């Protein structure tokens, strides 16, 4: 039997960030990951990049991970939103909300490597078991216990579900969820291009779904003289996406070049294409006795504004704050007060973001003329009203104080 204070089910980017955050605060953690390290570290495992907003960057800095990725993180200084290539469109400049960039683009493999490195430094407090798959979770009055498929048992004061959208721990804890499919699939790939991106992120709302190019640091070794890089997230109706996934690279590049136009110059793929079906899944509650959900296990959303992990990072920061507060009171880390405060702190923000992103998807993924007119009008309006613009930008930057009411202080 393995004993610890907090057991985290799932060692994706969410689970690992929580493990590092708690370990840095001196809390003893065991993190369970189903896949073997040889698999999670391989290039074929995750082709995505993550847009890390200012708030989540602070979370990574606080647990000592940011230092390790800063060099490979490309700042976003301008966000350009286009509606099916036609003006007016929105353009956000970062110094309208202060000196810091909107966020940084980091590829997921770099982020994972940095998290693992930090966790190795924190080995006094953090253990990652992999491969280690949860079979059952049993949250009793006195402790939480996870039984692995290989028979090992891990006990803790609190169990955290960070096992992604199809969270089995969520189900085991008896927390229901709801969701729907967008009928869209995101194609993700890293692009090499001729003209520098000037740190601009472009999101173009096309009828089939949004197409985004996100600025990355230059390639160490380019191809065909192309060294500038951007990350492509191209959402399409699933049938169209399947065609784009199966066609040869030349055909794909031609289709892509047509969509992104001339602003990046000539483009080509740096590596393979990855396909992610897009759906929404949200847990009905975030907590059960001795159990809390974070990140995608709590809410999987559409990547339309690159907010998925950002939202998860805010869960992680809130849970970390509550657990640190509890350690300073000497409380059992499964104390209901901790869970009540966590649920309270996160419910509004998560709800607003999940609904907001869903609305964006529905509003922008169609070509119905009145909707088109309305949203152009909407974009034009936002562009011209300073406070509204700044509010949107702050939310996009992932600051935590945008919730309309503060959480009550109870000592």
């Amino acid at each position, binding site marked *: *039997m393995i*004993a*610890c*204070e907090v057991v985290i089910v799932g060692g994706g980017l969410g689970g690992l960030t929580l493990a590092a955050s708690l370990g840095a605060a*001196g809390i*003893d953690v065991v993190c369970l990951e189903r896949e073997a390290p040889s698999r999670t570290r391989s290039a074929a495992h995750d082709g995505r990049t993550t847009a890390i907003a200012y708030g989540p960057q602070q979370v990574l800095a606080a647990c000592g991970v940011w230092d390790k990725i800063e060099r490979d993180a490309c700042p976003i200084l301008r966000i350009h939103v286009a509606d099916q290539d036609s003006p007016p469109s929105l353009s956000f400049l970062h110094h309208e909300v202060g000196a810091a960039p909107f966020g940084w683009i980091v590829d997921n493999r770099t982020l994972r490597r940095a998290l693992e490195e930090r966790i190795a430094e924190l080995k*006094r*407090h953090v253990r990652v078991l992999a491969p280690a798959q949860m079979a059952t979770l049993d949250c*009793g*009055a*006195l*402790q939480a216990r996870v039984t692995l498929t290989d028979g090992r048992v891990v*006990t803790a004061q609190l169990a955290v579900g960070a096992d992604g959208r199809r969270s089995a721990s969520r189900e085991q804890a008896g927390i229901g969820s709801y969701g729907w499919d967008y009928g869209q699939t995101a194609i993700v790939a890293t692009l090499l291009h001729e003209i520098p991106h000037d740190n601009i992120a472009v999101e173009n709302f096309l009828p089939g779904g949004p197409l985004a190019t996100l600025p990355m640091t230059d390639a160490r070794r380019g191809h065909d003289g192309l060294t500038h890089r951007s990350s492509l997230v191209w959402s399409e109706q699933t049938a169209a996406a399947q065609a784009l996934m199966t066609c040869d690279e030349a055909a794909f590049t031609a289709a892509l070049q047509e969509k992104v136009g001339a602003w990046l110059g000539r483009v080509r793929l740096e590596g393979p294409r990855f396909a992610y079906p897009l759906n929404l899944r949200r847990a009905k509650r975030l907590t059960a*006795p001795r159990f809390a959900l974070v990140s995608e296990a709590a809410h999987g959303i559409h990547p339309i504004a690159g907010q998925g992990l950002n939202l998860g990072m805010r869960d992680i920061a809130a849970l970390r704050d509550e657990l640190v507060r*509890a*350690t*300073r*009171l*000497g*409380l*059992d880390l499964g*104390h*209901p*007060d901790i869970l009540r405060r966590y649920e309270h702190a996160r419910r509004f923000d998560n709800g607003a973001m999940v609904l907001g992103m869903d609305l964006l998807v529905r509003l922008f993924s169609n070509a119905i003329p009145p909707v088109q007119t309305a949203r152009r009008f909407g974009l034009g309006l936002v562009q011209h009203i300073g406070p509204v613009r700044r509010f949107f930008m702050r939310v996009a930057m992932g600051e935590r104080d945008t919730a309309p009411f503060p959480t*009550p*202080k*109870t*000592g």
Partner: protein
Amino acid sequence: MPHAAPSVAEDEVARFSAQATDWWNPEGSFRALHRLNPLRLAYVRDNICEHFNRDPEKRQALRGLRVVDVGCGGGLLAEPLARLGADVTGVDASEEGIAAARAHAKLSGLKVDYRVDSVEALAASSARYDVVTALEIIEHVADLKSFLAAATKLLNPGGLMLLSTLNRTPRSFALGIVAAEYILGWVPCGTHEWQKFVRPSELTRHLEGQGMTVTDLTGMVFNPLAGAFELRKGDLRVNYLLAARKA
């Protein structure tokens, strides 16, 4: 991993659990205490840290301090204090309480010295402490004066005493007895006798008679909007906490 509980055999877990579950079930008969606990702990920690010049941000803020919790019940206060590094003794007259406390401490992997004893008997021994805590207990004792004399005797010179109880006011009758016991069912009916509630002025007078100096009085007030208790300096009408120093 310094804070981890040691491995416990399956059958022991089951046996201990049966004893400890009532005291330690956050939704059971001690629900109100569980909800109050973080707030009481914050008060106790902050007063001890201030008095003994400790950093309240440290996980082991109370390391090395000798604390006795009088009327410790199942150990709801004693265990957190032990986690904060204090060297804790818990005394309670109830054998079941102490049995539950012992069982639970074992499960939590914490060392607390639990004893079935009265405060007077303990004071008659040579044991002395840096801190005496007696929370939600003095409204239950038969002889307050003798209780406070013994509690004072348990303290080292310069030691700190922390008490909490219910004031004897019309409001405490309405909230502490009628609402808490009969309407909301937070505590079992018959838990409290209003006549035994103690006014802050009476408590201060008793303590001063023992040579103690009262350094703080703070109210614990239920805020229905937040659904939680909070500390409020000026409002001692129902639940309140008190800190006193021995010369």
